Every structure is written in C-alpha cells, then in structure tokens.
C-alpha cells in the first residue's frame, strides 16, 4: 500500500513537471512572437514615412529642417542594432514625427487636404500599433517572468534554461518627460 501511494505521488510530480515545462516553452515562444510583432509595426512605420514627407513637402517647403530631421531619424532607425539601440533611435524618430505633425497644423491647405488627413491617420495608427505591440509584449513577458519566479518553479527554471524576458522600457529621457502644452494660440 505505501508503495502504491509513492507511485501515485511520483506520477503526479512527473505530470506536473511535464505540464510546467511545456507551459514555459509555450510562453517563451509567445514572448518571442510578441517581440517580433513590435518589429513588424516598426517596419510599417519606416515604410510609411517617405510617403508622408513627399505628400507634405510641396506645402511645407520652408520647413525643410523639420522634414530632413524626420528623414534622418528614419535613416538612423533603419541601421539600429540591438533592442536598446533600436529603442533609443525609434524614440528619436517618434519625437521628430511628433514635431512634423504639430508643425503641419499651421498649414490650412494641409489640414484640409484629404490625402494628408489619411496619411496622418495612418501615421497615428502606426504609432498606436507600435505602442500596443509593446504593451502586449510587456504583458506576456511579465506573465512569463512571474511563472518562472514563483515557488517552486524558481528552483528549476534557470536549470532548465529559461531566462527572464527583458521588458520594453522607455530609454529616451525626452519621451518620459511630460510634454509642455502651449495654450496661448487658439
């Protein structure tokens, strides 16, 4: 009888171990996929920018500085290596795009142009998609990390080759600052 109890216990432990291991593998792949989804959205943004710049170039020719800074930031973002570098350069690109969209508000012909509105919508949406892809990545990465760090999994996780996933963080100090809002011009 004690032998039977022992056998049942061993089987339970083995089943638990297999289920936990498979669960961690599944989550690790989800985390990897989540990271790739961020790249997909960043690629979309890089493809969209030349279109936007070409559309507004005619009406905004004397804002050449703003336009070139966007194109330069894009070129830099394309050559980024590694997540930390990419995060910083994408942050600069975001800032440059934000300036361009803000300056475009000063041009009534641009504001009423349907093509420009459509492109602005696409750009706003792409910014959102990048943001939501990062949000989703952070959510599943946090779940993955928690699963590894709770007892008793914390005793085995690193032994089985699981490493905590790195969360996406705002590395650019400028992005973390509260934007100043100028209400003088209405």
């Amino acid at each position, binding site marked *: 009888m004690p032998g039977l109890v022992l056998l049942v216990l061993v089987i339970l432990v083995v089943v638990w171990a297999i289920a936990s291991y498979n669960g961690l593998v599944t989550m690790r792949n*989800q985390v990897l996929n*989540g990271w790739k*989804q961020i790249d997909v*959205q960043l690629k979309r943004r890089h493809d969209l920018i030349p279109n936007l710049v070409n559309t507004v170039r005619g009406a905004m020719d004397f804002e050449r500085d703003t336009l070139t800074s966007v194109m330069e930031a894009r070129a830099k973002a394309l050559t980024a290596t590694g997540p930390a570098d990419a995060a910083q350069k994408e942050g600069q690109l975001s800032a440059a795009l934000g300036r361009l969209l803000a300056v475009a508000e000063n041009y009534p012909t641009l504001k009423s142009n*349907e093509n420009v*509105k*459509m492109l602005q*919508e*696409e750009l*706003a*949406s792409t910014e*959102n*998609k990048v943001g*939501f*892809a990062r*949000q*989703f990545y952070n959510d*599943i990465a946090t779940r993955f990390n928690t699963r590894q760090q709770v007892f008793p999994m914390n005793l085995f996780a690193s032994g089985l080759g699981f490493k905590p996933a790195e969360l996406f963080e705002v590395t650019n100090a400028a992005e973390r600052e509260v934007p100043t809002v100028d209400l003088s011009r209405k």
Partner: protein
Amino acid sequence: MNLFEQQAANRRRTWLVMLAFVAFLLLLGFGFDAFFLSQVGGFVPIGSIVALGVGSISALVSYASGDKAVLLSTGAVPIADLLQSASEADALKLRQLDNVVDEMAIAAGLPKPPVYIVPDPDPNAFATGRGPGRSSIAVTRGLLDTLDREELQGVIGHEMSHIRNLDVRLMTIVAALVGGVALLSDWARRGMWWGGGRSRRRGDGEGGGGIAGVVFFAVWIVAIILAPVLAQLLAMMVSRQREYLADASGAELTRNPIGLAHALEKIDEAVAPTRAINRGSAHLCIADPLGRSLNLKEGSWADAFASHPPMAARIAALRAMAFEKRPATSPP
C-alpha cells in the same frame, strides 16, 4: 475569474445550450409520437427521430455559421465593400475604424477580425463568431458618425475582449438557436387568428386534417409558452456581469477607461432603438438595442433577468477605474 476560466466556462455553456436545444426538440418529438402512435398505431418513433435529426443538425449549423446568420439578419456590410464606393471623408472614417480594430487586435494579441458596418443611425456595436480568428466585429453607421477615435477605440476594445474570452461563442449560438425559436413563436402568434379560424372550419366539415391541425396547434402552444421562458433563459445565460467584465478588460486593452466611458455616454444619449438589430441578437450588442426598461434597474431581480447593466453604473465603474489608475507622481 481569469481569462482561462472565462474561456472554459463559455465553452461549457455553449455545449449546454446546444444540448438543451436538442433536448427541447426531442421533447416535442416525444409528444408527437405519444399522440400519433396512440391514435394511428405503429412502432417507429418518427417524431423523435426527426426531432433529433433536425435538432442536432441545426445546432451544429448554428455553431458553424451562426455568425453569418447574425450578420445577415442585421444587414451588415463588409467594410471593404464600402471603401470602394466611399467619398473621401467617409473613406477616412472607415479607414480609421479598420485601423482601430487592427490596433486592438494587436493589443489583445489576436488575429484581426473582419469589420462590418450595420446601416443604422443609432450608435451600437457587436461582435459575433466562434472565438479568436473566427469572429467578426460590426458597428452601426451611427456609432461611426458619433464617436471620435478615442471613444471608438474604447468600444472596439470592449468587443475585442468579448472575442478573447469566448463570450462571442456562447452569445452567437444563443442568438442563432433561441433567436430561431423566437422567430417561430412570433410567426405562430401572428398566424393565430388565421390558423385557428381555418382549423375550426375544417373541423366542422370533415375530420381529415384533424391530426395535422392538432399537431400544429400543439407546436404553436408549446412555442408560445416557451418563447418568454427562452427569452428569460437567454437573458440569464448572458447575464449583465459579462458586460461589466468586457468593459473592464476592454479598458485593460486600451489602458484608457475614460474613452469607453465617453463612448457609453454618447450611446446612452441616443435614445432611439437600433432597428436593424432584432430581439434574438439584442444580447450581443454593447448597449441594449431595444431600450428595455428592465436594463435600467438595479437589484437581484434585474441582475438575473436583464441582458445589459444600467448604463450609469457602467460609466461610473469605468470612471472609478480611471481615477484608480491615475499615474503616481514618482515610481516606487
């Protein structure tokens, strides 16, 4: 309840509804057999076999393509069809909706569902289908015209969480099956004077149509009695907790409860009922398309039988969420 428990509960309840539907038809079949075999004689339970067959097939068909039936009954049009012939300003709105759905799918980590427009001026929205990858989201023309981007995002986030936790599966099968019975009952009630009058006249003349008449009468009585019961059942299956939950998890997707709160305020202000959406699919919508007064009430009776929570309570809950989530001045 976490996401997996919600999904498991919805899978279980979907099976329960399908089994209950088949059992209901089988009961009608037994009744027919008991009557028919005692009158005419014979040993083959035709009624039960036919009822079992019809019940199983319609349950499976409802499971497989209930979303198509729901979309068809509301007259929803795929957004791609509208984009081809849309004016520039309209194309911008449609494109925006499509983008917002894409964004929410990314936030939920799900494949993007196809988007439909229901040609109705009242703001409303629903999701239908079997679950992630096999669902659709439909919004009315009124919703698209009334809401701004942020509010639209709130509504789509709400619908996306219905898809993610498999609420859509249960609600669609309920719409397809119980909606079908409700339709039958409506039809029987309308045919009451015509059917009743004719069978009486036949009864006077000759006894030939007697059995068919009695059978029709029995089905009609059962359908009429059961329709309100089924409507109650439907309301209980899709209790109002579901909407609170979808509001909360929708806000978790957008991280912006105020957007949905504003959207609900605007939807609430538009008092007109959504005519394109009938009784059978009312529980799918973000706001009750019929404007029933029970949905405005609080208390356990209303909690058990109403399909939607009071709008004021939903908005208050979302606003409370926004205040709780106010960013701390310094990170811990």
